[in-house]
């Protein structure tokens, strides 16, 4: 059948005088797309098609069909693609008179190969573009420009030129092309080129075709940002303002698509002057701004014209008929609200009004914006807002309610009246939707803690309601009473709770609801701690127990705040995606970016390293907060917080070696803290005291990490080095304090070595030694002097607490990371290296070393099994000195090849820890000290040379 079909087709195609019939081509296509067609048939098809492609008699349509068939063929049989590529290349099609055909051939080329394969000549491309009389040919060429591997400068010229094309689709394609080019912006060092492109796009904002207008907005936004990036200081903000105002002029467009695009773009511009923002939320030209401008550059009249062009831009967006536009406007507004207090205050009213929107997606977006404001502490709720705000607590949609409650957790209310209204709203929510109970309780707890005074007031007012009626029947099954109890127990934890006394019996009532409450508060405290706290409070007749209370449950606001800050992205954004057709196209902004943004107004000139350092230090500050959680026995919460930190760290991007050093250090530090947190749980809280093995494992891991922290980074300041050393000391103390683990002399020795090292550093930098070290030193001396197996539990762990709480560690010097990369070129399990059993084998290694100096002693370790490891010393002096980055190829000899068909080697590079004690050598010629490994082991596959 197949052959028969082929035969007929080929006959028809080979008839040079007549163009091939459509039927024949259709049958060929069926053969091509059938995966079962034999290779030989495919080859002959390919041959014929290639042949007929060369014929000059073919009409335009025939060419079109043949090209289509070839493209199909290439996509079906990928191994043939290069051959097809060549045949199209070699065919004279690209040089024919008809640009239509040439353009089509190019398109087919672009469709099945990547850009480096089919690099066509820039000149050819250019001439085709200019010769293309039909708009569709131009369109094809422009759309595929990037895939055809045309030089960026050439593309830029062509795209820019074709923005003048009379056909709107060509104009749009060239704008899209320009948008794509902006990613390779480093090519345009000349700012006037960027400016020229930007201005051209600005001109096209007035285009008659809406698709061109919306493409122009994208270009204005992206290229505008490039312009902004190129400016410094005040110019930067001026430029930023200019781009912003330019886009604002488009928000009154008649096309929905254009409006949505405009608002998306508005959200991308980060630094905008406050007066401009204020004007965008007022349709009237603001009088204050006129005054401000009086000493400015424009005449009053001109200024008014200008201001009226962007007046009320956001208002219009929020009032728009289409929910897509409203949603996008909400989202952009959110980006800008946190920068200026006055703007935040005014836009708050607008956002509150959006809670009355008829589209759920818009309401959610508005709540999201409010939450964002609350996170950044610029949500100042007024009484006028309360009706709408509380209304969202009663919304029939679950998602709206839960998002609204999330805001209430963070909100700071100015007076008792608003607090009472909010509590009332929450109770109504509880009344109407009883399934929300846990979350409502949690919100009440948070609110009570941040407004202790108000909460105490409320509790006093309703104490009648809580008290059991005469028969001793407690109305405790009522959710309302339970809610008040939650409020009551949260009040003492507040910092601004001064003198208002919560009757102790309320705490004992709360004990009866322990399960219900602890379930709601599981995020904050666990049941045992809560019980301990409640019983403590219920016993004390006065609030003299306040101090104890705090030591029992020192949940610090900041920790919670930080945690919720990180939630900005995830929990709300995720359900947003489920809303189906109303999903947002707007990218969520990560919290890191926002934090940067909040400070960037002041330091818009700061260089990249400083930015990374800043973010890193923000993360480091959070580590300390997380430690407070560890102390309050919320280890799991703390671990989660640390994990969040890690995730956030991963979001930072580094471009320079220095910043990547800081980031690597922070990551390592986070890992160390995680281990500490886990060990703390074992060693201090003694929660799982029977798992000594696990503990030992953790200690081992901690040791290794700490060692890496100490040796793999260079360029520490004295404080930083001290801190690292103290961490090691703390680890030793923890280890010694654990009775189950024998008080090993090695650890003692290590501790005393560290202590003496710290002392030297202290003397050098004239820094007061910390308490913990003084104690440790004393104890070490005692033990050493007694020379007996004294229990090391003499160490007081209480001081350890202070160590982490008091010390705020931040990174300020430019830390560099000693790192290495190792590659075995061309080796994997499929392509092993060959060896002859018993004879040495050379393993070629591509090694890259970062920041390694000649003092570092590096060893190549080659491990075949646990027991047999072979060391090779890497003599950096022989290998040619040291640079910041050093790349070389090294042939590593491996001697003890086993008698086996194949085996694997695990190769790594280790660095001797210079300050560690010498060990007794296990292997001759091996390293004398402990090694820290510079990267994960790499597997090398070897296979016996086959005979014959």
């Amino acid at each position, binding site marked *: 059948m197949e052959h028969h079909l082929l035969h007929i087709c080929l006959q028809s195609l080979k008839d040079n005088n007549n163009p091939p019939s459509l039927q024949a081509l259709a049958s060929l296509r069926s053969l091509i797309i059938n995966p079962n067609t034999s290779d030989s048939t495919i080859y002959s098809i390919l041959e014929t098609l290639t042949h007929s492609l060369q014929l000059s008699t073919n009409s335009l349509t025939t060419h079109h069909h043949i090209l289509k068939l070839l493209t199909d063929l290439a996509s079906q049989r990928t191994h043939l693609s290069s051959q097809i590529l060549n045949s199209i290349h070699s065919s004279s099609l690209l040089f024919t008179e008809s640009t239509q055909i040439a353009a089509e051939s190019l398109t087919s080329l672009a469709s099945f190969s990547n850009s480096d394969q089919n690099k066509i000549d820039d000149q050819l491309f250019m001439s085709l*573009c*200019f*010769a293309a009389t039909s708009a569709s040919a*131009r369109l094809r060429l422009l759309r595929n420009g990037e895939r055809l591997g045309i030089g960026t400068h050439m593309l830029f*010229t062509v795209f*820019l*030129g074709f*923005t*003048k*094309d009379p056909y709107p689709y060509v104009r749009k394609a060239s704008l899209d092309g320009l948008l794509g080019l902006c990613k390779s912006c480093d090519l345009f060092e000349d700012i*006037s*080129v960027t*400016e*020229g*492109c930007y*201005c*051209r796009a*600005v*001109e096209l904002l007035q285009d*008659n075709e809406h698709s061109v207008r919306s493409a122009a907005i994208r270009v204005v936004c992206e290229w505008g940002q490039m312009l902004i990036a190129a400016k410094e200081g005040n110019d930067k903000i001026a430029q930023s*303002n*200019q781009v912003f*105002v*330019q886009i604002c*002029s488009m928000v*009154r*467009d*008649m096309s929905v698509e254009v409006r949505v695009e405009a608002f998306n773009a508005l959200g991308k511009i980060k630094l905008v002057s406050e007066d401009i923002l204020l004007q965008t939320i007022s*349709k*009237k030209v603001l009088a204050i701004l006129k005054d401000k401008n009086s000493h*400015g*550059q*424009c005449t009053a009249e001109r200024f*008014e*014209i*200008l201001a*009226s*062009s962007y*007046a009320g831009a956001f*208002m*219009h967006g*929020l*009032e*728009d*008929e*289409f*929910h897509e536009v409203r949603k996008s406007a909400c989202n952009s507004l959110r980006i800008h609200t946190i920068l200026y207090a006055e703007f935040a205050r005014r836009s708050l*009213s*607008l956002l509150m*009004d*959006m809670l*009355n929107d*008829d*589209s759920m997606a818009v309401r959610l977006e508005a709540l999201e914006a409010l939450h964002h404001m609350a996170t950044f502490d610029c949500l100042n709720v007024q009484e006028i807002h309360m*009706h*709408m705000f509380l*209304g969202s607590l*009663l*919304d*029939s949609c679950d998602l709206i309610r839960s998002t609204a409650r999330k805001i209430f957790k963070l909100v700071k209310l100015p007076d008792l009246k608003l607090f009472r209204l909010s509590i009332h709203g929450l109770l109504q929510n509880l009344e109407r939707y009883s399934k929300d109970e846990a979350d409502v309780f949690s919100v009440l707890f948070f609110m009570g803690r941040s407004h202790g005074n108000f909460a105490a007031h409320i509790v006093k007012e309703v104490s009648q309601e809580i008290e059991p009626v005469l028969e001793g029947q407690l109305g405790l099954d009522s959710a309302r009473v339970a809610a008040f109890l939650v409020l009551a127990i949260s009040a003492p934890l507040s910092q601004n709770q001064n003198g208002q006394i919560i009757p102790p019996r309320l705490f004992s009532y709360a004990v009866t609801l322990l399960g219900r409450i602890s379930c709601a508060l599981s995020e904050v405290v666990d049941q045992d701690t809560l019980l301990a706290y409640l019983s403590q409070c219920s016993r004390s007749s006065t609030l003299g127990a306040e101090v104890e209370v705090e030591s029992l449950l020192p949940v610090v606001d900041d920790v919670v705040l930080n945690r919720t800050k990180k939630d900005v992205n995830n929990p709300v954004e995720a359900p947003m995606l489920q809303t189906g057709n109303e999903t947002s196209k707007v990218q969520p902004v990560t919290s890191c970016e926002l934090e940067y943004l909040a400070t960037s107004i002041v330091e818009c000139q700061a260089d990249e390293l400083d930015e990374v350092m800043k973010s890193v230090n923000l993360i480091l500050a959070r580590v300390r907060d997380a430690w407070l959680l560890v102390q309050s026995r919320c280890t799991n919460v703390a671990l989660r917080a640390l994990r969040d930190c890690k995730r956030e760290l991963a979001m930072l991007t580094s471009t320079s070696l220095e910043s990547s050093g800081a980031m690597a250090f922070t990551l390592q530090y986070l890992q160390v803290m995680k281990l500490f947190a886990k060990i703390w749980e074992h060693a201090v809280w003694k929660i799982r005291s029977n798992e000594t093995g696990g503990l030992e494992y953790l200690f081992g891991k901690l040791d290794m990490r700490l060692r890496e922290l100490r040796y793999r980074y260079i360029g520490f300041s004295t404080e930083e080095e001290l801190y690292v050393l103290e961490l090691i000391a703390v680890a030793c103390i923890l280890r010694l304090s654990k009775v189950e683990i024998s008080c090993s002399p090695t650890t003692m020795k290590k501790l005393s070595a560290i202590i003496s090292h710290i002392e030297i550093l202290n003397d050098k930098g004239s820094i007061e030694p910390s308490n913990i070290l003084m104690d440790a030193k004393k104890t070490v001396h005692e033990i050493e002097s007694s020379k007996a197996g004294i229990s090391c539990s003499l160490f007081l762990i209480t001081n350890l607490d202070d160590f982490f709480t008091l010390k705020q560690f931040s990174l300020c010097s430019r830390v560099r990371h000693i790192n290495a990369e190792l590659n075995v070129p061309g080796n994997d399990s499929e392509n092993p290296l060959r060896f002859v059993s018993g004879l040495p084998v050379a393993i070629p290694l591509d090694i890259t070393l970062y920041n390694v100096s000649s003092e570092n002693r590096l060893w190549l370790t080659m491990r075949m099994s646990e027991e047999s490891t072979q060391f090779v010393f890497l003599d950096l002096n022989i290998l040619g000195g040291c640079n910041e980055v050093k790349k070389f190829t090294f042939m590593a000899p491996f001697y003890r090849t086993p008698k086996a068909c194949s085996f694997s080697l695990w190769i790594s590079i280790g660095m001797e820890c210079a300050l560690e004690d010498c060990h007794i050598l296990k292997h001759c010629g091996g390293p004398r000290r402990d090694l820290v490994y510079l990267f994960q082991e790499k597997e090398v596959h070897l296979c016996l040379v086959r005979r014959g």
Partner: protein
Amino acid sequence: MAIECLVLGAGQEVGKSCVVVTINGKRIMFDCGMHMGYDDHRRYPDFSLISKSRDFDHSLDCVIITHFHLDHVGALPYFTEVCGYNGPIYMTYPTKALAPLMLEDFRKVLVDRRGEEEQFTSLHISQCMQKVIAIDLKQTLQVDDELQIRAYYAGHVLGAAMFYAKVGETAMVYTGDYNMTPDRHLGAAQIDRLELDLLITESTYATTIRDSKYAREREFLKAVHECVAGGGKVLIPTFALGRAQELCILLDDYWERMNLKVPIYFSAGLTIQANMYYKILISWTSQKIKETYATRNAFDFKHVHNFDRSLINAPGPCVLFATPGMISGGFSLEVFKQWAPCEMNLITLPGYCVAGTVGHKLMSGKPTKIVLDKDTQIDVRCQIHQLSFSPHTDSKGIMDLARFLSPKNVILVHGEKPKMVSLKERIQSELRIPCYLPANCDTVHIPSTTYVKAHASNAFIRSCLNPNFRFLKRSKEENSDQVLRNTNSTAPLQVNDERVAEGILIMEKGKKARVVHQDDLLLMLRQKKHDIQFGYCCAAQLDNLEETGDRDGALSHSDKCSCLQLLFKELSNYFSGVNIQDLGEHLQVESFQVSVCLKDNCPYRIIDSPRKEAATIFFCCSWSAADEKLAREIISAIERFNLSDNLPCKNSK
């Protein structure tokens, strides 16, 4: 050709909208409204101005009605049936459906209540409506060979449209009443970017800039919610069409979200009937209603029930919509009498109430007692909430529309004169568009674009098909570094496509105009291409030359060269950034050439006799027009040079 615009009504006033526009000989009457404030002849537009002979069929090509409000359609039956116009009348489908209802209602009020003599009968209305041709949104309708009209969505009320009319290449838009911000049930006005010679727009709110409607909605909802939560009854007197539906959608939505169970009632009568029209004409409502229509018709209110008179005094809270809007009588007054004395209740008032109605009394201050007639007094203890929703666009909306359409001229109608004057000034200063505010019976003449058809030569068409762009670089200085640049700021890098510029328009007497390519022209005229060269022979001073050179001034060849080299050196120093080439016989900068002139009377020389006391050397310069500026700079530099300073070394030998 020109547009002639005769304003018969709504010129510098609100009421009886009627504008007759003549475009390239075609006459269109936009709207045919009546003035509600007058009972005499001023009620109707003065139709006699259209045609002295009252032969309207021949003097008008068509009548276009924008929407069903009486000040836009009220005079139509009178015009067709009494004045005898029989030509085509265009309006949108909803307007065609609702206009007779409004007209009939008005007629009844006139005849039944006021006992006036009727201007037209029910028969007139129905006969008039038979002449109406309905038009759909964005449907282009060819009235005759030349006149084209198209309707665009205007918001405002159900079925309101803006109309685009085009005769030949002259085009205009008449907006009627429109709203640029959407409300709960109607969308915002929507129009394409058109090339317009004239825009005639309403200007009801010529100076007002309205704040967000959300604040008003929020206050309304809060007032209503608090009232019903306290067990009170809410009376919402409204007009049947428009506001009632909007408020009802707002409430129904809020009820749904807040899960409220309090009943909402609609009083029977026109409101129910109007709701039916809304349900049918879904495509004329807002986006939201159109979107949800597939699942649920938004006008099938979930929480709304029909009201029964017996419910007036039923216990418990409720919300009631009742007509008429100004509590001038009817059911809303009846309910008002019952509910006003109770503090718990709430009455909401529409934005505008005619003087003399109860609504107006309530609005002006908070009366405790209202005297209806000498027997009836009502104690007013209830709360009063004033609504200020308006379906007209504000001044910002008018500006935005004008900015978007960028017509060549704007005429303002349907507004109050002082406010219109200030809007006119803004349009002229901010948008730089000429603007007019004709009074009633004034005529405005506007020149329109004239188009001439021309043949295009093949070469020209071919050159037009090929892209031919080039980049122009502006010098930096021209760029102002203002903080906020105007939108049309000059770009440093400009893209020019000069395809059309390469064409040449030829108009010969008695022949059709032609556009040809540059190259064609030379062929046609059998001429060669000429380049214009400028020439100038400038003098430079040469003091010390007499020591060696001939006294009579004739320079030898070597002197000539050395002079040129000296000049080269000087110029290179002076214009350090410019590429100056020394080509032996002459120096060249771009197209500028300079050589030593040896002729005694060079035609390019202006000073013909050299001053004897100082030796002067002449340089002949030539350049093409493109380098004019550069050439002038170089020449003025040469004339300033004193070449002698650098000469001595050679001459001292």
